[in-house]
C-alpha cells in the first residue's frame, strides 16, 4: 500500500517495482520447486489421475490428449536429467499408460512398449509385470483380433515372471487368434516343454528387436540380446580356460582378443584366470535367463 493515488506516479512506480521484482524471482522459485520434487515430470495433472475423469473432461479432444499423454509417458520413462541419469522409480508409469490407453484405446504402441517399460525390473523399468499384464489385457479387450497383444502377454509371463506354463498357455491362446503366424504354436510348445529357455529367450528378443516400433523398445531388446550373447561368450570362454587348466595345470596366457557385441575385448586376467566384460564396455548387461 504505497502512498500516492491511483492516478499518481507513486502507485505507478510501486506497481512497476513489484512487477519487476516478482518477474525476477519467478524463475528461481520455479527452479527450486523443480529441484525439490521431480514434480515437473510427475503426472502433474494429478487431480486428473483417474483415467475416466480425464476422458470425460477431454470434451472430444481424446485422441489429441492421448497423444499428449503418450508423449508425456515416454518423457517420464526415458528422460534424463542434466547429469544424464534416468529416474529410478516409475511409480506413475502405469497411471500414465492407463490414462493414455483410456483416452485412445487404439494406441497400440502404448500397450506394447508400455508393457515392456512396466515389466523391466528397476532400474531399467518399473518392475511391475503384473500391471503390464493388466495393460495388455485391456489392450486385448479393445483389439480382440490382435494376436500380438496376446503374444506380448506371454512374453511377460515367460521372461519377467518366469512362469513358463502360463507363457505357453498364453501363446497357445495367441495362436488361436485369426491371422496369427504359425511359429506361435511352436513357441508355445517349446515353452510348455520347458526346454531351451535360452533359445526361446533369444528368439523372443530378436523378434522384439526386429519388429519394435519404438526406439526404447528396440534398445531394450538389443540390450537383452547383447546380454544373452555376453552370457554365452563368457560361458564358452570360461569353459575354454577350465579345459586348458585341466590339461596344462595353468591358465592360458592369452585368449586371443574375443570381443563383446559392442566390439570391446573381454577383460582377461591370466594370473587369476578370470574373464569378464570390460567395465568400459558399451554393453549394458542385464539379468538374463
Amino acid at each position, binding site marked *: 500500500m504505497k502512498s500516492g*493515488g*491511483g*492516478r*499518481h506516479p507513486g502507485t505507478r512506480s510501486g506497481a512497476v517495482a513489484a512487477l519487476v521484482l516478482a518477474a525476477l524471482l519467478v524463475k528461481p522459485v520455479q527452479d527450486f520447486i523443480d529441484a525439490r520434487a521431480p514434480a515437473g515430470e510427475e503426472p502433474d495433472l494429478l487431480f486428473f489421475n483417474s483415467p475416466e475423469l480425464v476422458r470425460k473432461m477431454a470434451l472430444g479432444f481424446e485422441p489429441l490428449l492421448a497423444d499428449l499423454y503418450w508423449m508425456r509417458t515416454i518423457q517420464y520413462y526415458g528422460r534424463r536429467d542434466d547429469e544424464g541419469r534416468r529416474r529410478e522409480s516409475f511409480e506413475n508409469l502405469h497411471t500414465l499408460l492407463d490414462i493414455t490407453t483410456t483416452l485412445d484405446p487404439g494406441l497400440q504402441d502404448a500397450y506394447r512398449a508400455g508393457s515392456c517399460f512396466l515389466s523391466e525390473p528397476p532400474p531399467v523399468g518399473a518392475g511391475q509385470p503384473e500391471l503390464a499384464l493388466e495393460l495388455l489385457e485391456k489392450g486385448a479387450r479393445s483389439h480382440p483380433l490382435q494376436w500380438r497383444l496376446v503374444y506380448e502377454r506371454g512374453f511377460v509371463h515367460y521372461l519377467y515372471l518366469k512362469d513358463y506354463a502360463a507363457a505357453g498357455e498364453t501363446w497357445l491362446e495367441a495362436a488361436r487368434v485369426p491371422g496369427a503366424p504359425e511359429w506361435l504354436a511352436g513357441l508355445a510348445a517349446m515353452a510348455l516343454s520347458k526346454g531351451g529357455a535360452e533359445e526361446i529367450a533369444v528368439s523372443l528378443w530378436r523378434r522384439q528387436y526386429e519388429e519394435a516400433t519404438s526406439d526404447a523398445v528396440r534398445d531394450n531388446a538389443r540390450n537383452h540380446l547383447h546380454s544373452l550373447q555376453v552370457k554365452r561368450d563368457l560361458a564358452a570362454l570360461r569353459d575354454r580356460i577350465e579345459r586348458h587348466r585341466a590339461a596344462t595345470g595353468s591358465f592360458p596366457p592369452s585368449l586371443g582378443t574375443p570381443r563383446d557385441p559392442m566390439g570391446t575385448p573381454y577383460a582377461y586376467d591370466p594370473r587369476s584366470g578370470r574373464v569378464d566384460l570390460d567395465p568400459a564396455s558399451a554393453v549394458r548387461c542385464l539379468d538374463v535367463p
Partner: protein
Amino acid sequence: MAVIEIENLTKDFAVGFWRKRPVRALDGLSLEVRAGEIFGFLGPNGAGKSTTLKLLMHLLSPTSGSARILGRPAGDTAMHERIGYLPENPYFYDYLTPRELLTFMGRLFGMGGAPLARKVRELVGEVGLAASADLQLRKFSKGMVQRLGIAQALINEPEVVFLDEPMSGLDPLGRMEVRRIVTGLRERGVTVFLSSHILPDVEAICDRVAILNRGRLQEAGTLEDILRARISGHEVILSGWTEGTLEAIRPWCSEVRAMGERLHLRADDREDLEAVLGFVFAHGLELVSVNPIRPSLEEYFQTLVVGK
C-alpha cells in the same frame, strides 16, 4: 473565490476500429465556478457535458488543458474527500439495498458506526427512499436509482457537488424534489455544478449557467444576461380593434393574429413598435399588454443547434 477552475480543457476520443481517428468531444473549455453558487452546465445531447464532468472526476485524462477543484488538481485523492458526484444514468450494485450501498460508500470516506448509520438514515429520508431503504436495487425504477445516486453523492457532506443530468428519469414530482434538494444545498453553502438539457429546471434554480455546444463553450453568465441580449422584438396585445385597424398596422408588424376580441401583434424593431403604439393611442384602441419577446432557452438552443 473560484471553486472549480477549468482551463482550456480539451478531450479527444479515438474512434474507429482499424484506423483510429480522434474525435474532439471537448474543445478548449475554460470556466470558473464560484463558491456557493448553483452552476448550470447546459447543452444539447452530445455537447460534451458528461465528458467534462468525467474529466473533472479524473475518470478521463484530458488531451490538453487542466482542471482544478478546491484548488487541487482533478486527480487529487484528498480533494475527493470533499466532493460528491452523481454520474449520468447512474447504476449501482443491484444486489445491494440503499442502506447497504450508502453504508459502503460512507466507509470509503472512513466513516462508520452510529454516525454513519445516522447519516444514511437522514439521506434516505431526504431523497424520499425511506420506505424502500431495505429493498434490493434491482427492484428499483430508474427514478429511484437516480434519487439514490443523489444520496450517495452527498454521503460525505461534500463542499462541491457534481450532478450529471440529475433530473433525467424523474417524474415532475421527482424533479421538484431534486430542485428542492439542490436549493437546500445552496442554503448550506454547497457549490453545485449541474449539467442538464432540461431547461426549465435549470432556469428555475441556477445562479449562473454555461452553454456548451459541440464541445465548445457558447456563453457563460447569468441566464438573464444571456437571454436579454437576445430580445428580438415585442409582442403587443390590443382589444377593440376593427378591420380597418388591421389594414393600417400591418406594414409595421411581422406577425398579426386575431384571437377573438384580442389582436396579437409582433413588432420586430423599435421604430415599428413606436409606430404601432402611436397608432393605438391615436385611434383610442385599448392596449392590453406590451412584452419584450425573450427567446426561451429552448429556442436559444434551437438556434444554436440549427444555426451551426
